[in-house]
């Protein structure tokens, strides 16, 4: 976690290294949610600036930086998409995942696993999960959009997340 300590001590070089490592992930998530490059660039800027201004918000003892940046980016992009004020304080985001996102090779393998898991899901399940994650839709909104019962949507989302977990437990 020396990069985070570097940022805490105001080291601009550490911030540049961290940007080079995670900017593709952050930009991809923002672009997928917002569908527009200018808006995605703004979210990219905002996420890294937040880390620069408040590096203590990320607690390295309680999670992994790559996953944390992914969650922060997704939340900010959804807030932008839904034109609402940020609802989550970044210091409240705690997320721990198995793969070491700092390692490019491991991150790449994890990406393949996630994409493989999504491709392997029934279309309706994958679609419900992606609408909830990348569009920030509630189960009620997804049900209204697809014409499916509320309970079915809920179950599909949960089953989709369980399928994803299984891929990493195998």
């Amino acid at each position: 976690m020396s990069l985070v300590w570097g940022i805490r001590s105001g080291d601009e070089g550490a911030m540049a290294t961290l940007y080079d490592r995670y900017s593709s992930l952050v930009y991809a998530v923002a672009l997928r949610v917002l569908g527009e490059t200018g808006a995605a660039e703004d979210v990219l800027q905002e996420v890294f600036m937040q880390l620069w201004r408040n590096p203590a918000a990320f607690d390295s003892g309680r999670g992994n930086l790559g996953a944390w940046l992914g969650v922060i980016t997704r939340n900010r992009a959804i807030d932008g998409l839904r034109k609402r004020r940020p609802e989550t304080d970044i210091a409240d985001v705690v997320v721990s995942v198995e793969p070491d996102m700092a390692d490019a090779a491991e991150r790449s393998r994890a990406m393949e696993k996630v994409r493989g898991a999504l491709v392997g899901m029934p279309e309706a399940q994958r679609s419900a999960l992606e609408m909830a994650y990348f569009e920030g839709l509630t189960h009620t909104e997804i049900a209204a959009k697809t014409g499916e019962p509320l309970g079915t949507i809920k179950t599909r989302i949960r089953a989709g997340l369980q399928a994803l977990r299984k891929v990493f437990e195998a």
Partner: protein
Amino acid sequence: MSAHQQFADDLALLALGTLQGDERVALEKHMEGCPACRRELERLRGDTALLALSASGPKPPQRSRERLLKAIAQEPRAKKIPARRSSSNFKPWLAAVAFLLLAGFFWRQSDRLAQRVAQLQDESVQQQAQLERAREVVSTLTSTDAMRVTLVAAQTPPQPQGKAIYVRERASLIFLASNLVSLPPQKAYELWLIR
């Protein structure tokens, strides 16, 4: 259906941040007393975070990197925190020893202070008694009801008498007089003090 099963689907929605209204309130209330559901929520948040890895696309343009680095260079940092080697350097026994030393130091300080307070209280009582005696003397000397008797040899007619008690350092003077002859109007006795 157990409580956990009833809330299982909602936990996934909460992890995604899309559970709203009464359902969210009910789940959060249940979780207050259910460690199993809290643990499951943490795991589901991890599963949810993995979904970010499914996003793919072009790399961000070079201008984004330049924009960020320029903004960082211009952004004043409120406080630069010196880098620490590792939080594992913290040694609980060292903190315990420091605590005991401090406790001993404060205990000794407190003991000394208690002794000093007792000494000051004694001094205060003595000074109060002296002050009372002084007040009594002054009160007797200055009281209008006081009987003033001068003892002289028998058959000696009363003699005019004046007594001045003067303390130069304090600029304090007490004058006692008796049997002074009454003066005609526009005349007065004078007492001169020449320093």
